[in-house]
Structure formats: C-alpha cells, structure tokens
C-alpha cells in the first residue's frame, strides 16, 4: 500500500494545457474520488498516475518513488476501465490471471490468486466463460477482479460504473465500498456522478477546467462549498442560486424582496452577492425539520411538482428566480397553489457575485 502525491502536475497537448498545476496528497489506504463535469481533466489526471499519459510538468509519486518516467507496468498499480477493457479472446480465468502470467508467477500461485479473487467477487461459476458471454455487471466484476489479483499498491478506477444501468450501478457501488473495506488499499476513483462521489469517497476532489476546486470529505464539500460551482455540482437537486445586493443588513433581490443575512458572514453595504440555498433548506411550513434559530418565511407559488415518493420537489419562483424546494411527508399539491415556505438561513450560503467564491468568514 502506498500514498500518492501529485506536485504541480501539468498536462499539455501541444500548446493546449488541460491540467493546470495540480497538487494533491493521498494517504495510504484512502479512497479518493475525483469528480467533475466531462472535460475537467479528471480522467487525464488519473491516466497520468497510471502512466497511460505522459506528464508534461510536475511530479507524480507513488510511495516514495517519483514515477514520472516509469512505464505503467513498473508503477505497481492496477486500473479498472470504463469499458471494462477485458481481453475478449481469453476466458474469465485467463483474464484474471493474465497479469500474473506476465509477471511469471507459477501456475499453482496464479490459480490460487485467481480463485481467491473470484471468490471475493462471486465470479467462481463464470471462470470458464469468455467476456462475450457475460452481462455488463459481470464484466465489470471481472475487470475489478483483474485489478485485485495483483495486490497492487494503488487501484485506479476510471468511471467504472458509467456503462451500467441505474440499479446495477447502486449494487456495484456497494460492492466497491465493501471491497475497499476488505482490501484497505489506496483507491483513486474518477466519476462524473456526484452521488457516486459522495457515497464512496473518504475525500472528494472536485475538478473543473483542469483545476482542483475543492478537496474535502463528502460532508465538508456538501456543507461548505468554496464556490458556486461546487455548491451546484455536489448535491441533488443542485443548489438554488439567486443574485442580490447587501442593503440595510439584508439581502435584497432584483424584484425588491429581501431575506436576512445568514449567520457567519461579514459583509459590506452594497456588496453584490449570490445567495445559495439547497432544496433541503426551503420547505413548506409544517413539512420542515424542527426549526432552528435562523429562519425566514417566504410565500411562493408552486409552478410544478415532482413527486419522488418519500419527498416531493416543488418548483416555485423566489424573488423572480425559479428555485426548487423540498416537501417531506408529501401531500398532493396543485400547481398554482400559494404556500408559505421556511428558509433555514444557517444552512444558506453567500458567494461573491463576480468570482463565485464563498464569503464565509
């Protein structure tokens, strides 16, 4: 097992720089998820760690060794690919044992490791089949099995669940988490799905346009997003954002309505801000969680509802901007109905209107 360090890592294709001087320290045994929209450089970063992409600048170290110039096979890593990347001409058993065969292990050793991995991933009955005869979920398990037989220092996952259907994805997510608890190995996991990131990660690394926006535990990034991008990217539905100005110790919105300033901010009169609130923190009176100290009430007209069973999403206009609110223990709501909502101010965020950075002290 090993730590992974990225120091000022840069990736350029010709003159186009796609990863800009990234710094990241991953502890031994940690499960780190790189998450971001497509094209944010997360896969490229992972592939630089794997050695499948050259490193244009900076250093990648695995353990104590700088691996910039080592080919993948000398980095002691294994990788699970989005499209499984199984060898179609080999049986499951051969796929699992291939890396050991290349490393010139003896046949009994290979069989032992393969059987062990097959056991962990319940692949034993499939060992003699070829990948063509497997379902998507089974192929993904084989790909994971291929990664674990070698007992590498670092596991790299490149969007491993994106090709599976929603139900299977949830199932495999649990299996990956269990696998990590069992193997206690360092894992770097790339995904564009924030739910996967939240559920799997010890720490989440949120990337955008080749920069790291924020690093933190799932709760940290959820509760204290450093900017509007993280706020809207993490959490579902995305955080509601409203533009306003600080006036008379309140946030005044474009339509003239206003809300009190959430606690923990130091603001100047006339400052342009973006007010951020999650759907979980705007709830109809009577459907909200027990109220805290900082509450504000607003009246809104519900335009549209999305019943989800345990909760219903309500689309309504707050200060002229469409926002999503949440109703727990739902009752049927007619569109056009006027309702009083509670805004939990201590869970709300204020960002700089221009840079999007948080204004929290």
């Amino acid at each position, binding site marked *: 097992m090993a730590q992974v360090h990225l120091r000022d890592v840069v990736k350029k294709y010709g003159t186009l720089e796609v990863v800009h001087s990234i710094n990241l320290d991953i502890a031994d045994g940690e499960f780190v998820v790189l998450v971001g929209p497509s094209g944010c450089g997360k896969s490229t970063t992972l592939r630089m760690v794997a*050695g*499948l992409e050259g490193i244009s600048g900076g250093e990648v170290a695995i353990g104590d060794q700088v691996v910039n110039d080592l080919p993948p*096979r000398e980095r002691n890593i294994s990788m699970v690919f989005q*499209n499984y990347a*199984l*060898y179609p001409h080999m049986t499951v058993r051969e796929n699992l044992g*291939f890396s050991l065969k290349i490393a010139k292990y003896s046949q009994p050793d290979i069989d032992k490791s393969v059987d062990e991995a097959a056991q962990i991933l319940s692949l034993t009955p499939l060992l003699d089949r070829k990948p063509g005869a497997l379902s998507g979920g089974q192929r993904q398990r084989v790909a994971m099995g*291929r990664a674990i037989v070698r007992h590498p220092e670092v596991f790299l996952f490149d969007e491993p669940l994106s090709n599976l259907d929603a139900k299977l994805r949830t199932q495999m997510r649990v299996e990956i988490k269990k696998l990590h608890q069992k193997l206690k190995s360092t894992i770097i996991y790339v995904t564009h799905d924030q739910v996967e990131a939240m559920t799997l990660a010890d720490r989440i690394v949120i990337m955008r346009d080749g920069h790291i926006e924020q690093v933190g535990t799932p709760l940290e990034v959820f509760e204290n997003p450093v900017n509007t991008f993280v706020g809207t990217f993490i959490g579902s539905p995305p955080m509601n954002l409203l533009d306003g100005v600080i006036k008379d110790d309140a946030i005044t919105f474009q339509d003239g309505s206003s809300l009190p300033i959430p606690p923990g901010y130091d603001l100047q009169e006339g400052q342009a801000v973006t007010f951020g609130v999650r759907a979980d923190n705007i709830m109809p009176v009577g459907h909200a969680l027990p109220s805290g100290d900082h509450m504000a009430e607003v009246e809104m007209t519900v335009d549209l509802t999305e019943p989800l069973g345990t909760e219903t999403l309500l689309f309504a206009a707050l200060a002229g901007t469409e926002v999503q609110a949440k109703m727990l223990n739902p009752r049927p709501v007619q569109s056009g109905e006027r309702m009083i909502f509670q805004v939990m101010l201590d869970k709300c965020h204020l960002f700089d209107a221009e840079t999007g950075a948080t204004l929290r002290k």
Partner: protein
Amino acid sequence: MGLHHPTSPIIRLKCMELFHADPRDILMKRLKLPPWLVLLMPAIIILSAVVLIPLLLSLYSSFTSYRLTRPDSLFNWIGTFNYEKAVTDAKFWAAFGRTVLLLAVALNLEMLLGLSLALMISKVTRGQRALRTMMMFPMMFSPILVGFQFKFIFNDNVGLVNNALQSLGVTDTAIPWLVDGKLAMFSIIFAEVWTSTSVFGILILAGLYAIPRDPLEAAKVDGCTPFQSFRFVTLPFLMPFIYIAMAIRSLDVARAYDIVQIMTNGGPARRTELLWTLIGRTGYVDARMGYANAMGYVSIFLAIFFTIYFFKKLQSARKELGMGV
C-alpha cells in the same frame, strides 16, 4: 366463305390472343410451370449461359481426347484416361508441388512483411495517408507489367540487380537470376511478394484501426512489455484479418500465371513451371484441351482446399474473439 378464312372471327380472336398474351401466361398456364420456377427463370438462364454450360462442357471435354486443332475429337470419349494420365504424370505433380511451395513461401512472407508495414504505418503520426497510398502503389500495376519489369531487373546482362551488385563490388560474375532453376523461383517469389504485400498491409492496417484501445491499455497496466502487448492482445485481434487476407491471396496465388509466364515462361527446363502455366501450355500451345481440362479440375481442389482451410481458421479466430460465426 369457309371457317378457316383468315378473316374468320375465330381465327382473328386466336391471333389477338397470342399477340396480347402475357409471357407469364405462356409459361405458367400453357407449360404448367410452377410460379417459383418461372420467377427463377431469368437467373437460371443467365447462370446456365455464363457458368453452368461452360463448366459442364469443360468437365465433359476432360473425358474426351479433345484437341483444339481437331474439333471433331470433342466427341471422342476416352473415359478417365486424362485423369489417370495427370495423376501419374511427374511433370504435373512437380508443378503442383511448386505451386504449393510458392503459395506457402509467398503467403507467409507477404503476411510478415505486410504485418510489419501495417504496424509501422499505424505508428506514423504525420503523413499516414500519403504512406498508406504509397503502400498500395504495387497493386496498381498489371501483373503482366510487373513481370516485364522484374524480367528486366533480374536480367543477367543488363538487369538492375546484377548491375548494382557488380558496381558495389559484391560480385564480378553475372548472376543468372532467371536462368538458374532455384534463383528463378526466388525471383518469381520476389516479384510476387513485391506486388501483393500491400494486400496484407492494407487489410492488417484495417484490423489495427479496428482494435479497441482499452484492452491495450489494460495490458500495459497489467505489466506487458510492448512485445507482450502485441503478442497477447494485438495479434489475436488481427488474426481474423490475416486469415481473410490469406484466403483471398491463396486463391490468387493458386491461379498464378501472368508473372511467371512473362518472367520465365515456366523455364528454364520447367524449373518454374506452375500448375496454370502447365495447364495453359497444354491447352493452348499443345492444343490438348481435354487433358488440360482434366488437370484443371484436379488443380481446382488445391484452391478449394486452401479456401476452406483459411475460412475454418477465420471462423475459429472470430469465435475466439467472441465475434460469433
């Protein structure tokens, strides 16, 4: 006016009926042919005229002493005499063996060279299109012209090869490339390989483009050296393409005629005689068409054998990759 007068209404009616009759009516109603046969008739007529009748005629003639110079000999039935003569003829078997040799050597060389060419071109980042086009140049020339060109290149007096060897001081004798039996076979193989390596090159290149990138990257991570990646991942993916090229080229080489005819005319002393130069000579020069046809039928089995063999290989290679049959 009698009943059979031309203008009698009944006869006029008959004429009109014939004139307006639909050909389908004639075939289906008058001849009582089933509809499926009527519908297949155009195909049957064309195939018979172009393939079936010539085939049957040549098969028939192989049982006669048919000579082109004596047309009436077409009706001189001699049973299996021609076949017995062919299978006991040392010259025939020598040509057969030489054809198999040419097939084996040329095909394998072309495969190896084509594979290397394709691998190199696939690595080129700039000017790949131009190189691809250039690789196909040899395919653009008629084999007859290629034959003439190599006949000149390997000429022992004025040829390019001897000239170059002598200028470089490698040798001061005139090497008889096309006169010595073994060297002549070598020269022919050389010409054959020069023209057709690109067939393998282009098909294998297509195969290389079709290989998914992921398994190759997985192989890198799994610890493969570049050679091991090639051996365990790339090559199994390429095998179907190689077998397709082999099947196409085995048919080509099994009927080899033009290059040999031009370069050596089967000589010297029949040392480069292949099946079809022998058959061509027997049929058209010696005019013994019956005998030539008999040898032709035996030779066809060679081509059929190789085609079936490579298609079997192709199927199993595709099955290996889980591509179905």
